[in-house]
């Protein structure tokens, strides 16, 4: 960009100041969400994740129309290998494995959404309070967070679930949510602590903003991508945890989920009879769903960190 001779320098109006960044289109945008989705779509990894995730969601919603049979209908020959009638074979009670696989999507998605949500909310509240309040409140809460981080989660969940009088998906969701919040809390606490020191927060105080507005309207919007990324991660972890709990036998054996499918498969000696149709698909489905979530998270990272946007 050549310098134009004869231009006067002095007290120009600020419009002549250094030009804004290259991708400023000058459009007035009040909302950031559409922009966010666009970035996620552009990122190859997260685009794959989004498509995969959408697939699972569709299967979950339309399960009754996609699955050929009622997953609990024990109308077939038990422990049968894959056939034209039962693409993945049958369970020990003569139920269609393929239908169970389809319906299992619902359980995993629900557990992921709810348990992940519960863990994220608990983590957010504790993390935010610890980070904003500081002092002894922070010391106590931090200790609490560290304890839950260090104690092995699966044994804890197992113990909780085992003592629960009610068996069922709700218990599993609550147990996972209540034991898995610590990591998120720690992350949000440190972000809260760093955001609290920013000048614009001091400025907000001096603009007369009350504390609730500062926390919710000034700080929280800057934490959104972290919260979303944390939620997606928590959902993935919850799905894996549910499978683990179900497999061990602590979940509700009557629910249809991929974890319980593996539980019954193992219990019924599917290994011995070589029923790969019962053994392999549930595990694969789990891995694919969790991978989809991880991939989507790459996109969320790209939103918060512009450096990562160029692929």
């Amino acid at each position, binding site marked *: *960009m050549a*310098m134009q*001779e004869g*231009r006067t*320098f002095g*007290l120009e*109006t*600020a*419009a002549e*100041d*250094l*030009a*804004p*960044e*290259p*991708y*400023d289109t000058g459009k*007035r*945008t*009040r909302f*950031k969400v559409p922009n966010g989705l666009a970035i996620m779509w552009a990122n190859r990894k997260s685009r794959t994740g989004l498509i995969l995730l959408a697939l699972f969601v569709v299967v979950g919603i339309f399960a009754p129309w996609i699955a050929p049979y009622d997953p609990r209908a024990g109308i077939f020959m038990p422990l049968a290998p894959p056939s034209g009638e039962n693409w993945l074979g049958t369970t020990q009670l003569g139920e269609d494995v393929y239908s169970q696989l389809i319906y299992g999507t619902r359980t995993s998605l629900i557990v992921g959404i709810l348990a992940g949500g519960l863990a994220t909310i608990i983590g957010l509240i504790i993390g935010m309070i610890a980070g904003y309040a500081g002092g002894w409140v922070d010391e106590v809460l931090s200790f609490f967070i560290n304890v839950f981080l260090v104690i092995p989660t699966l044994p804890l969940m197992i113990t909780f679930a085992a003592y629960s009088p009610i068996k069922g998906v709700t218990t599993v969701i609550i147990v996972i949510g209540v034991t898995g919040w610590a990591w998120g809390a720690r992350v949000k606490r440190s972000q809260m602590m760093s955001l609290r020191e*920013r*000048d*614009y927060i*001091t*400025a*907000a*105080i*001096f*603009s*007369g*903003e009350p504390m609730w507005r500062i926390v919710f309207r*000034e700080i929280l*919007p*800057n934490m959104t991508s972290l919260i979303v990324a944390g939620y997606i991660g928590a959902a993935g972890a919850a799905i894996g945890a549910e499978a683990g709990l179900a497999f061990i036998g602590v979940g509700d054996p009557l629910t249809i989920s991929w974890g319980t499918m593996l539980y019954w498969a193992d219990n019924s000696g599917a290994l011995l009879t070589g029923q790969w149709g019962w053994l392999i698909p549930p595990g694969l489905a789990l891995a694919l769903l969790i991978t989809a979530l991880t991939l989507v998270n790459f996109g969320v990272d790209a939103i918060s960190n512009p450096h990562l*946007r*160029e*692929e």
Partner: protein
Amino acid sequence: MAVLEVKDLNVSYMTKKRPPFHAVKDANLTIDAGEIVGLVGESGSGKSTLGTAVLRLLDPPGTITSGQVIFDGKDITRASEDEIRPLRWAEMSTVFQSSMNALNPVVNIGKQFKDVIEAHTNMTEREIERRTAELLEMVNIDPSFSRFYAHELSGGMKQRVAIALALALQPRFVLLDEPTTGLDVVVQQAILDNVKRIQKEFGFAVLMISHDLGAIMEIADRVAVMYQGQLVDDQPARDLLLRPKHPYSRVLIGSYEDLWQPASGSAAEDASSDASGQPITRAFGGKAPVDIAARHGMDADETRMLGMDDLQAIAEATAQDPAVVRAPAEASAHEAVMVIENISKHYTRRRGLTKTRVDAVSDVSFTLRKGYITALVGQSGSGKTTIGRLITGIEKPDSGSILFGEQRVDQFARRDLKEYRRHVQLVFQDPYSALNPAHTIVHTLTRPLANFMDVSGRAARQRVAEMLEQVGLTPAEQFIDKYPHQLSGGQRQRVVVARALLSEPEIVIADEPTSMLDVTIRAEILEILNRLVRDKGIAMLYITHDLLSARALADEILVLNKGRIVEGGDANQVISEPQHDYTRLLLSSIPNPFAEGLVAD
């Protein structure tokens, strides 16, 4: 013979998604043996990229797209890493910005000398030890420190280690990349003096990159100016000062000139300016620290390399001198808004199991007046920021009183503080963290209106637009709905000023409002503050480390050292006739491009 030749060099950042960014365009530069060349430019001008490219340290996506870098007659532009390695450090070395993080944190200092010496020579272990000791002594560090780790050294020591390290293999060329940025003015002076001394002794060529023209002028024989990727000017130092060729160079020199001209209306003729009417030259030449040290009975050996610790010691010693405070003559014409009397504040610092008491502010008194600008000048650790916090009520002093009208700010309860906020507003240092990235400009600026003045909706938007115009953001419509990341640093800072003024405060506290802005913009921001504060009759406290900008802007200057006011009075007088040794120390350390009585054209 030229040590370094840069011919038609082009460096670009090639990313996959966006068009390539041309950081350096057709650069031509020659550095002869033993020559000190300065490269000055603002942030984003490409000067650091040029330096990195010259050393062949560019990381992808940065690449040299065309042109040549010739070192000692050898074209190293496309040489492989293996071909360049023998040159590295042995022929060309570098010192990074302030060396805060340039030393490996998990390896001790001695080993970091050892690994580079070993890589390039065949010296035995004992010889290496001896050489390391020599190098450390040259920068006045006890050789026993080689067993220490980076985090156990003070900032000044780390900088000296970095310099010693750079000279370990006696290279022919040393690149200094912002070597004094972020350091106190006095430390900066000491380091530059010592680099000059060592360079004279060993005769290596230097390329010093900095955004601070003053610092460069201290040591450079020749200065090149970089603007938007191009080298627009390249002349011997004095010539550049007197006859800048390029319009941008003129602006750059101009912004420094502004600071050194006496403020209009005050005593333009004073005894210290020389007969040609030139602006003030540096008091005591370069020997001030030594003289002052001697006066206080300290060891003052000129050949030693002074670092931050020595200068701390001198600052401490001068702190004991009696303070000299004279109220400026016109002060009484302006009505007092806030009276601060004898405030003190201390902190207890706990490291491990020991506690130390730090007296941040001791017995400070001054008055803020309507339409009157008071500057609080001090280096880091002087207590100036603490005073700002005490005035705004964020913290309470241990003793003394802060009177705002009839009210005692130092005794405010929480509820009173909330009421008080609208009367005292802040202008922050960092324009990049002073505005919430999640909100548009209009949203951020309407908050004070809504909270303090019960104005919202269209009326509020109207007021915001008016204020934006007043700070120079015209037409306001172009800026009002933007997000902070869409504005430049200078534009953001204007918004920050607008926000401060919207609640119609009585007092504005500006804490280093321009230190993070490019030099060419600083004057404008100060000008806006100056105009608006005087027009609206606001009392302003200008906190800074920069004596010169204080003189350009303020009516009264208070010099702060170690929590005490050591000198105070009319701005021009304090600068032209400093009474206290500490003030003299500060003044003598300010890089003055116009020193030694240059004759104006």
